[in-house]
């Protein structure tokens, strides 16, 4: 059942040849559960092992083998449910989804169909125009399939069952997304939440997070159009491209008087197109029924409360706290909380210091540099302690902002304690008024005409400050220079 939750926003409409169109997007995210063992077997989930090394008798569906639920996967699903503010179902049921495929050894996937473990929740997106709440329909646990490999032999396909039976969370959104930007923001945000929770590493390159994207278009106010499902899109960029392409394709068909066929499509990243995979008529009849090998899943009394207590601070709360506690802008707070590691790094730097200054240095200097050199915050050559030390030196007037940038460069390339570097290399700001006064006097004496002009034109002060700074090698305290110049030039 589709429930209308958002009015059309004129700014998000796509211009067609004859009309404006609204794109409606719903997503099914398959997130691999972070766990040591598979959902129903003790086999390892370790990535990158040789083919068919993480395969138990259960995973290979040997005769007489039975599934046993991995309770850690259940806890991870509950944690995730709590993280998306969803209703946790005390009672849920595992069903069999029946179909034949060589990488599906049992001939069925164990999933949750009618009774999922997690019900309705929400994810809040911070869009430029403000916050948007995206409804979550449900989250359920299911087994991943193995992998069929078709390019190793001209006549045979190979099957790798390492992934077979690994736990996935399928997180289904309501059809609440209205643009490719929102879709990308949604996946990004959901991934951030999963990473904070430690329930999925969100690594899309390894296939640990995949999206099925449902796209339809309509004229604003009209009922939902026929949707197409784009299967298994494995990067956030591709999700955006696939939606853009698919929306325009559908608009093109409708404006030419055609109708959309409900079908499953694939996104081809090399061409930037979606193409038909199978039509509704070719859709499988999965013959879902409750798996008789498993009892219904009844969560132990108190589990939800226990997990709720252990829940880490999530991005939305962290962002609000950063704004309140450190006086950060919404934008800066957003940037910092996007990755838990970044937020933690920032907090280490900011604790006991000027939060805004810390945010500036972390975001502009450090992240800028990390991005440029392909590092992430965990492998940063400059530690939170070093950056904090550097900020302390600015704050107590030991170095100027300009020198601080040089110092940052030194710490980045050579390492070391900022304070010791400043001492050793004589980078200390000159606060000795006598020395500064001497330099000021020299500059005024050398430029009598400009000194005269400055009396009537206070803007000239900047030029004098620049000259004094230059002559002192940038070490003079700019505030002291400015104060002295004002006095000597008689400028207010």
């Amino acid at each position: 059942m589709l429930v209308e939750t958002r009015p059309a926003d004129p700014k998000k409409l796509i211009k067609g040849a004859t009309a404006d169109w609204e794109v409606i997007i719903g997503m099914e995210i398959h997130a691999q559960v972070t766990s040591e063992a598979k959902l129903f077997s003790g086999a390892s989930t370790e990535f990158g092992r040789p083919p068919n090394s993480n395969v138990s008798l259960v995973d290979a569906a040997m005769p007489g083998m039975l599934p046993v639920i991995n309770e850690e996967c259940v806890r991870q699903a509950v944690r995730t449910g709590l993280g998306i503010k969803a209703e946790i179902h005390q009672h849920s049921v595992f069903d069999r989804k029946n179909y034949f495929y060589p990488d599906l050894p049992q001939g069925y996937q164990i999933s949750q169909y009618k009774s999922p473990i997690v019900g309705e929740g929400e994810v809040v997106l911070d869009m430029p125009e403000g916050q948007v709440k995206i409804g979550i329909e449900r989250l359920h646990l299911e087994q991943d399939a193995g992998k069929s490999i078709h390019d190793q032999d001209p006549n045979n396909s190979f099957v790798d069952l390492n992934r077979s039976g690994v736990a996935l969370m399928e997180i289904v959104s309501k059809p609440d997304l209205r643009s490719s930007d929102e879709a990308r923001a949604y996946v990004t945000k959901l991934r951030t939440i999963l990473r904070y929770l430690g329930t999925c590493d969100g690594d899309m390159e390894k296939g640990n997070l995949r999206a099925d994207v449902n796209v339809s278009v309509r004229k604003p106010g009209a009922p939902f159009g026929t949707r197409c499902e784009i299967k298994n899109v494995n990067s956030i960029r591709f999700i955006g491209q696939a939606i853009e392409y698919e929306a325009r394709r559908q608009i093109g068909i409708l404006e030419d008087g055609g109708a959309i066929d409900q079908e499953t499509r694939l996104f081809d990243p090399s061409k930037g197109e979606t193409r038909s995979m199978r039509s509704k008529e070719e859709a499988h009849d999965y013959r879902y029924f409750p798996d008789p090998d498993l009892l219904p899943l009844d969560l132990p009394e108190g589990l939800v409360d226990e997990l709720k207590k252990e829940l880490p601070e999530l991005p939305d709360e962290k962002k609000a706290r950063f704004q309140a506690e450190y006086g950060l802008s919404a934008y800066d707070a957003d940037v910092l909380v996007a990755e838990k590691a970044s937020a933690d790094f920032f907090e280490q730097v900011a604790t006991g210091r000027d939060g805004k200054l810390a945010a500036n240095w972390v975001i502009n200097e450090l992240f800028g540099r990390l991005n440029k050199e392909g590092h992430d915050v965990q492998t940063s050559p400059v530690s939170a302690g070093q950056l904090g030390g550097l900020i302390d030196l600015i704050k107590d007037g030991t170095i100027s902002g300009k020198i601080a940038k040089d110092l940052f460069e030194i710490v980045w390339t050579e390492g070391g304690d900022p304070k010791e570097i400043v001492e050793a290399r004589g980078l200390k700001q000159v606060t000795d008024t006598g020395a500064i006064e001497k330099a000021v006097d020299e500059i005024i004496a050398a430029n009598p005409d400009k000194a005269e002009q400055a009396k009537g034109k206070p803007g000239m002060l900047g030029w004098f400050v620049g000259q004094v700074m230059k002559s002192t090698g940038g070490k003079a305290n700019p505030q002291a220079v400015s104060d002295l110049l004002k006095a000597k030039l008689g400028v207010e």
Partner: protein
Amino acid sequence: MSELTDLTLAEARDGLKAKKFTSAELTDAHIDAVEAARGLNAYILETPEKAREMAFASDVKLAKGEGGALEGIPLGIKDLFATEGFRTTACSRILGDFIPTYESTVTTQLWRDGAVMLGKLNNDEFAMGSSNETSAYGAVANPWLAGNTDKVTAKSALSDLATAGGAGVLVPGGSSGGSSSAVAARLCLGATGTDTGGSIRQPAAFTGIVGIKPTYGRCSRWGIVAFASSLDQAGPFARTVKDTAILLRSMAGHDPKDSTSVNVPVPDYEVAVGRSVKGLRIGVPKEYRVEGMPAEIEKLWHQGAEWLKAAGAEIVEISLPHTKYALPAYYIVAPAEASSNLARYDGVRYGARVPGKDITAMYENTRAAGFGSEVKRRIMIGTYVLSAGYYDAYYVRAQKVRTLIKRDFDNVFAAGVDAVLTPTTPSAAFAIGSKASTDPVEMYLNDIFTVTVNMAGLPGISVPAGMSSENLPLGLQLIGRPFDEETLFALGAAIESSAGSLPKAEKWW
């Protein structure tokens, strides 16, 4: 010394402990009997070397006065149980020469307690059948012959079991037909079986032995080839109630590898054998008095009730109103689960594979060649009842019926009934081929008194209680409360002793 193979399991156990004979002697006597009885086709894999090896190990322990509850006792194993290193096929061509690298939990526990494996026993393909005629290894002969059957003719007919019915050779029941035949023919002291709709109790009744299907969840299903997961349950066959009690104690127990196995203590069932049945309330359900029931079955049932009454039990008429829906509902639930359980036999990883031009053709060729017609029929029924548009009308309704059947039993137990007494089967064993080629429903009707028990997940025992007019064995069934197998052993023993010394199947094979 009398024939070692004629001993009961308990007698053999006691004889071994008393060092009257060795497990090697006992095992060899059985190996010889198995070889001499190949015509019955009860064993589809004989493992004499393994048996001798195990017997030797048991004798070492017995000599030191050690050993488990089944130390040195030779048993036969239904081919549904995975046996490590020994071919396990569920008597289907689709498993080919599949040799598991693992051992089922139930057999692991038997070996743990010292039992000796004689070999693997025939059964209906994937346990689907009531006569053992659907086996890829062919039919099994019942060691019983009707009184007027010519033994010489019957023996010569064993060379072609498919037509042996014409010479009066009877089916041993099914699906555990190899197990029932082997135990009745004294080719082992006991055997394992599985029971999804009557596959232990009906063959036990047809061959004049004891068979118990314990409560669902009592024995682990791990390592047993699945037919219908919510109904399948392992249990023992033996020639006396006491022997099945001894076997069940070893077979039962919670297994963390089977989520549906139940963690309740396993009592010493042997103690319950011979326990007084005085004051027990026995329900006789009026709905089991089906139309066309032979008078001799009716008479036996009445006789059973009289015996229990004489032993001090109280007999009450009860009603299980949803009984008539059990069989049709069973033939929806069981095939539905089977259609999914058997999807793994796809030719990809193990067992038989018949190549095809693409993957779909390979699947089709493999499954067309690998499954027999009864299995195909049930896969098709199961696929149909789970299909979109039919699911609610069939599967969901069948599950509702199942709930009602269970409630029927709950109600009578809540009203103070301790066990229910019924006939095990509506008739004695029939001739090979006499029902297999007719309407399949005719065959399904064999399970009319037994399927309710599986649908309700209850324990049920079949005990030999008398002989038919053709001098064939007939059994009575006792149905108990969940996990109260002890009461069934007590009542079963009461019937057994009241029935007195019933004839044995005389060797003609």
